[in-house]
């Protein structure tokens, strides 16, 4: 699928620039050109496709469906899956959270949605396909959904409603009538320019992180010997996964910046499970998100939320290292 990009990178670096093949510099540059082009192309394609999905995604209907139907545990899986397919802006998470809870959806189910949403997003998916291939991407997406489902179930069992902010509890008691909403329906062709523009905007906003990430990755690719990390971070080392996760949480970066580096770490010998756990910790949990959630939850609830998710990520990391 990407052979022509590799061909172009080979031609540019070895023929046009005349850098020797298999030299450290040549390897690093070739990797940089190939990865950058491939990732940008994938990013645009996937954000565009997800934009179309998002444009038609009936989030209100889904909320109503979830609040009306008893699914005997299936609602967690459903909410988590919706979290994966709705690529909404991160600042929508608070309105969504309140909207869900207000609609009578249990807190745990809402959390399932909230956990998966940042974890499985269009940028992460595009980067994953580009760096690790389709199979690993499917595994990542599936485990992200699983993580949201299990995390939501655990949090749901804890009965955390009293820990919501006072004003949210008040909102819950005085459920308002549904807001009046008269949107002019748009045709597919009317929607396309906006979607394309948005996709372009997303690619533009992560562009610099992609370049920096791939740049660092390319340097490591060219200059760090293969198997370098195996000496330090092995599957047998029981602390590698928790340490990677704890290091990842305070790092606020998007998938675009972290994944190119993770790809190289894996090539150089870091186990995939440890790398994915690190990535999930960086992308799924962040301090800015905690600040936003502070408006609707008590600190205790946020800590519990983060704690449960961290625990689940560590567990998944071990699991991946075990199956691969």
């Amino acid at each position, binding site marked *: 699928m990407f052979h022509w990009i590799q061909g172009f990178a080979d031609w540019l670096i070895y023929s046009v620039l005349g850098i020797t093949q298999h030299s450290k510099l040549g390897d690093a540059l070739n990797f940089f050109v190939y990865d950058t082009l491939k990732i940008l192309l994938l990013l645009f394609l996937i954000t565009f496709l997800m934009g179309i999905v998002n*444009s038609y995604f009936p*989030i209100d209907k889904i909320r109503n469906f979830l609040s009306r139907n008893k699914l005997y545990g299936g609602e967690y899986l459903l909410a988590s899956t919706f979290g994966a397919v709705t690529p909404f802006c991160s600042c929508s998470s608070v*309105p969504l959270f309140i909207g869900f809870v207000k609609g009578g959806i249990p807190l745990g189910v809402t959390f399932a949605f909230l956990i998966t949403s940042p974890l499985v997003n269009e940028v992460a998916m595009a980067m994953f396909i580009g760096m690790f291939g389709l199979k690993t991407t499917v595994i990542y997406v599936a485990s992200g959904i699983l993580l949201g489902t299990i995390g939501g179930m655990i949090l749901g069992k804890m009965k955390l409603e009293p820990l919501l902010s006072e004003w949210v509890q008040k909102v819950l008691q005085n459920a*308002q009538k549904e*807001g009046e909403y008269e*949107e002019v329906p748009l045709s597919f062709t009317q929607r396309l*320019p906006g979607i394309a*523009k948005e996709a372009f*905007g997303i690619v533009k906003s992560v562009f610099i992180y992609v370049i920096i990430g791939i740049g660092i990755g390319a340097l490591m690719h060219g200059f760090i010997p293969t198997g370098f990390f195996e000496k330090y971070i092995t599957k047998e080392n029981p602390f590698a996964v928790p340490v990677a996760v704890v290091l990842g949480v305070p790092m606020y970066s998007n998938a675009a910046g972290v994944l190119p580096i993770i790809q190289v770490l894996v090539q150089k010998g870091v186990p995939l499970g440890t790398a994915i756990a690190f990535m999930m910790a960086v992308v799924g949990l962040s301090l800015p998100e905690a600040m936003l959630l502070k408006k609707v939850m008590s600190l205790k609830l946020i800590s519990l939320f983060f704690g449960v998710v961290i625990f689940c990520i560590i567990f998944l990391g071990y699991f991946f290292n075990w199956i691969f």
Partner: protein
Amino acid sequence: MYHIKILGTGCPKCKSTVTNTLEAVKLAGVEAEVIKVEDIQDIMAYNVLTTPVLVIDEQIKVKGRVPTVEEIKNLLTAQ
């Protein structure tokens, strides 16, 4: 005179909605007051799930995406 409100917690999408709205108001040549609503409690009073939201005269017109200048202009001149 239109009363336009843009609901959003301050993300890039909300900001471009504001820019587009101001541009559309200018192009449509109508009189309008454009207010940014950033407080989450005020936003939730509109019972929306996704932001940004464009409210014209207390009616929700667009939510969860950035409307184009053209689209807002049409909304303003159609009424």
